[in-house]
């Protein structure tokens, strides 16, 4: 087989030499044969005649020899490629239209595929990552929550379904001792965390078991990017120190560049270091921000692991009812955790872009058919002089392939730009560390797509070109070179398909637009205009005591109020639409005590007096906080309207009291008097229902991490540097986290819907244009073909209206059929995107009707232009053409 290929290749590449050899060989034979005949006594002319009889046509023999050497297919291919390129050059209009369409189709697909691959398919950088399971706790009331550390320790000890299990707690650090203090993210992890993932430090050592216990020395592993940016990739970094939250940490190693975790991770510290600094998390009732990760033991399925962990959680619930009532274990493959938010978006976009490609193929097939009708005679002639149907079909396919190859190259260039655009639209937290690049798999995909497209749109013209009868075609002479009924029918079918697919895309885009509109019409309970939000975390030892924190916040608030343009400055925790949430059980004075898991569990906001005012949260009863609500005054609180309704009904909650946690005989209850009721807010995004909320004044409980809210008369973004200056004047080592306007936060919270709408809208518009061009092309062509007939009709007295109607009817039938099919398809396909829709049904009749109408009008417009041309046919000219 290999030798055979080699032989063919040699024959091909040494074609000149091979031809010369063949000539020599055959000449030798003929000379010998001639001499033989002469020797036998024939005259020279007789001998030559005899030779011709015996040998046959020299050229034919040569041709057969070439065939026998097996180089013909390649030669034919090269010939077809040359022929195809010549044809493409000869009709630049056709080539440009087809190339542009294909480039758009292939480019869009490649771009979306890059996203799909980066997000859903790219292998995770852990060996056998399918067996990595993320575990957390869940309660019926809140849903997924963190696992408490003692619960995790029990899980790890009792969970036989896992060969190993590790915990990772999300930690933020202030990195100081550098030019500009900055805030970085890290994980406090069990000693076996990296080993479980199958990751080895690039430099230095992994953590060891003794470092899981509190009291261990402060050490860190650096992420590769942090090592590069802050230590210049210095290979001698191990043993150096790093100031985190004002404490000195010794670097023990560096993580490999491909390391990726569910949350952004700049450093890893051992669990023991974290427990040393946060002893409260050693308590079972404390659920911070911890996930467990386990590797399934060999042979154990996820279902088996779930069943086992359900048993473990149930035992813990029985043993520790006060802290574990109704707490279950939730198990998800790590890939699902990474992509859960973005998967529906990506899948919908991929389905949509497939439609775009199909429409592009239909358009190009249409162009081919239109040109094919002009080439019918060429094909007929070639068949008449001996070309086989297969040979002609192959030639057509090669032409398609040429086009798609060129289109594919252009498409890749488009995709490079599009990928950047789309990656920019996706919010970083949804990507969860996935990188989106146009790399190897995407390029392979584009190549496969180009080949597939060539088949998809090349097959119809190829079939069509070889079906006709050569004789019939030639008999027509040069007169009409008519495409015949076959081609028109095919073109009609293609246009119908285009219209139907365009409708599906437009309905999808319409549904997204309507959802987005509905989302933005949701009352978030806050006024977002001109409000800037900026997170500040006090973590260094100087802020360990509450008075120091209070002092910092007071000075910052004072500084902010004196900035020009500032209308209100406030502080708060759990600001709506941020990632900062804190919830706690409360006990309302006088309530019948429920089971430990059934206490009211509101979101807790610790706020400054102007908080509600800065965010425009309405006061519904009582009063807001004042500066007098301080550590020396009576503990006070505000509650949300929902909480008031649910627990006080028609009664007035003002003056009533609640406390955090459950009543306990061990300590004196700290009752908080309700002084006000405020409106509900959409804490967890516009699409999510509001929850119970309580507010307490920050002067009675100053936290270390708060969000600054600055409401201004001017564009709040211009205040950023002023705010930074105020904070630096209070504490120059204090880093700032991101600053964003509340309007931006609202927009980000609907980014999945927004990107889907933008991309679907673009695709829908593209599809609409292609479908309109398709209809226009078919009708124009039909009018040109029928101009003779139309001329006769006009000559016989047909009125303008009659002709217009006749042409429009033809287009209307195609558009109507396409719309009908498209409606049916939309009805089925838009269900796929129902998880992305908000208060709009996937079969929303309004959207279906509007899009059908829009597409119908555009389609009729596309018919009207050629129809007008038909009306203007001059009967005399039309008849003279005969």
């Amino acid at each position, binding site marked *: 087989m290999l*030798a055979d290929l080699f032989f063919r290749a040699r024959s091909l590449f040494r074609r000149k030499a091979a031809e010369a050899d063949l000539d020599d060989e055959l000449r*030798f034979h003929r000379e010998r*044969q001639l001499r033989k005949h002469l020797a036998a006594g024939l005259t020279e002319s007789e001998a030559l005649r005899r030779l011709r009889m*015996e040998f046959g046509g020299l050229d034919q023999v040569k041709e*057969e020899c070439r*065939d026998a*050497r097996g180089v013909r297919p390649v030669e034919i291919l090269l010939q077809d490629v040359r022929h195809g390129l010549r044809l493409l050059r000869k009709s630049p209009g056709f080539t440009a239209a087809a190339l542009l369409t294909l480039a758009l189709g292939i480019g869009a697909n490649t771009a979306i595929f890059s996203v799909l691959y980066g997000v859903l398919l790219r292998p995770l950088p852990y060996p056998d990552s399918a067996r990595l399971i993320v575990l957390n706790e869940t309660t019926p009331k809140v849903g997924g929550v963190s696992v408490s550390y003692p619960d995790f320790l029990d899980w790890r000890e009792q969970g036989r379904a896992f060969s190993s299990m590790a915990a990772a707690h999300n930690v933020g650090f202030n990195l100081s001792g550098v030019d500009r203090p900055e805030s970085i993210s890290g994980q406090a992890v069990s000693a076996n965390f990296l080993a479980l993932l199958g990751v080895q430090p690039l430099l230095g050592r992994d953590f060891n078991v003794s470092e899981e216990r509190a009291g261990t020395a402060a050490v860190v592993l650096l992420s590769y990017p942090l090592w590069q940016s802050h230590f210049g990739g210095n290979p001698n970094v191990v043993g150096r120190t790093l100031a985190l939250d004002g404490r000195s940490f010794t670097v023990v190693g560096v993580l490999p560049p491909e390391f990726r975790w569910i949350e952004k991770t700049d450093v890893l510290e051992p669990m023991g270091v974290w427990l040393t600094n946060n002893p409260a998390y050693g308590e079972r009732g404390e659920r911070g921000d911890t996930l467990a990760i386990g590797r399934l033991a060999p042979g154990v399925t996820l279902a088996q692991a779930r069943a086992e962990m359900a048993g473990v959680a149930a035992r813990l619930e029985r043993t520790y009812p006060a802290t574990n009532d109704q707490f279950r274990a939730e198990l998800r493959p790590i890939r699902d955790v990474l992509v859960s938010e973005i998967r529906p978006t990506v899948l919908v976009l991929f389905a949509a872009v497939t439609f775009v490609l199909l429409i592009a193929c239909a358009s190009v097939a249409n162009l081919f058919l239109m040109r094919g009708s002009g080439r019918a005679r060429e094909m007929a002639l070639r068949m008449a002089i001996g070309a086989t149907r297969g040979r002609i079909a192959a030639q057509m396919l090669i032409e398609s392939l040429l086009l798609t190859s060129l289109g594919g190259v252009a498409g890749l260039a488009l995709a490079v730009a599009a990928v950047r655009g789309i990656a920019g639209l996706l919010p970083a937290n949804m990507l969860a560390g996935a990188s989106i690049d146009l790399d190897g798999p995407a390029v392979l995909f584009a190549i496969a797509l180009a080949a597939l497209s060539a088949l998809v749109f090349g097959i119809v013209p190829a079939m069509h070109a070889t079906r006709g009868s050569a004789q019939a075609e030639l008999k027509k002479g040069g007169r009409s070179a008519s495409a015949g009924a076959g081609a028109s029918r095919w073109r009609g079918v293609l246009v119908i398909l285009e219209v139907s697919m365009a409708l599906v895309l437009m309905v999808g885009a319409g549904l997204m637009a309507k959802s987005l509109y509905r989302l933005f019409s949701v009352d978030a309970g806050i006024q977002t205009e001109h409000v800037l939000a900026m997170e500040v975390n006090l973590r260094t030892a100087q802020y360990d005591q509450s008075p120091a924190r209070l002092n910092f916040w007071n000075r910052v608030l004072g500084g902010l109020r004196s900035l020009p343009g500032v209308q209100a400055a406030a502080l708060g925790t759990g600001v709506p639409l941020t990632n900062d949430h804190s919830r706690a059980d409360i006990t309302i004075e006088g309530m019948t005590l429920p089971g430990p898991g059934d206490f009211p569990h509101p979101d807790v906001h610790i706020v400054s007096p102007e908080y509600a005012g800065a965010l425009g949260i309405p006061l519904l009863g009582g009063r807001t906080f004042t500066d007098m609500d301080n550590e020396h005054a009576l503990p006070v609180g505000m509650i949300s309207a929902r909480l008031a309704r649910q627990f006080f009904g028609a009664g007035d909650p003002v003056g009533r009291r609640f406390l955090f946690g459950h009543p306990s005989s061990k300590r004196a209850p700290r009752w908080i008097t309700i002084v006000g009721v405020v409106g509900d807010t959409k804490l967890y995004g516009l699409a999510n229902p509001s929850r119970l909320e309580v507010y307490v004044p920050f002067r009675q409980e100053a936290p270390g991490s708060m969000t600054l809210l600055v409401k201004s008369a001017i564009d709040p973004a211009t205040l950023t540097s002023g705010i930074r200056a105020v904070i630096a004047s209070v504490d120059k080592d204090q880093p700032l986290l991101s600053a964003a306007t509340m309007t931006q936060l609202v927009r980000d919270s609907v980014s999945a819907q927004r990107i889907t709408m933008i991309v679907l809208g673009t695709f829908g518009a593209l599809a609409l244009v292609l479908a309109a061009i398709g209809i226009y092309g078919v009708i124009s062509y039909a009018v040109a073909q029928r101009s003779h007939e139309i001329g006769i009709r006009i000559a016989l007295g047909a009125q303008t209206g009659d002709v217009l109607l006749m042409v429009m009817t033809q287009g209307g039938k195609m558009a109507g059929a396409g719309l009908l099919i498209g409606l049916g398809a939309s009805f089925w396909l838009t269900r796929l995107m129902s998880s992305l829709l908000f208060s709009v049904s996937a079969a929303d009749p309004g959207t279906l009707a509007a899009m059908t109408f829009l597409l119908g009008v555009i389609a009729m417009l596309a018919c009207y232009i050629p129809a007008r041309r038909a009306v203007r046919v001059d009967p005399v000219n039309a008849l003279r053409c005969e």
Partner: protein
Amino acid sequence: MPDKRIDLPQGTLDLLILRTLALGPQHGWGISERVQQTSSNALQIQQGSLYPALHRLERRGWIKARWGTSENNRKAKYYELTRAGRRQLDSETDAWKRLTAAVAQVLGTA
């Protein structure tokens, strides 16, 4: 002459070429002469189809070609059997014998 000629059944040309080359390297004309002589003029290779057949056999690796000098000092392309070709000849000869024997048997009993 036409009456004396036997039309070669499909595939026998290859067999004849291989058999002739089993005697030693030979050029195309020589092969056709040899076949004609050894079959007492009963088999005459269609000269037009000899060369495509040679090229096909070469591609399959059963024979290989090299340029040599003919008996009258002319440059000529000589073909010789490869090891694969010899095996092919053996199996084809075998198949041919069984075929002719079987056909002869049928004809004999008919």
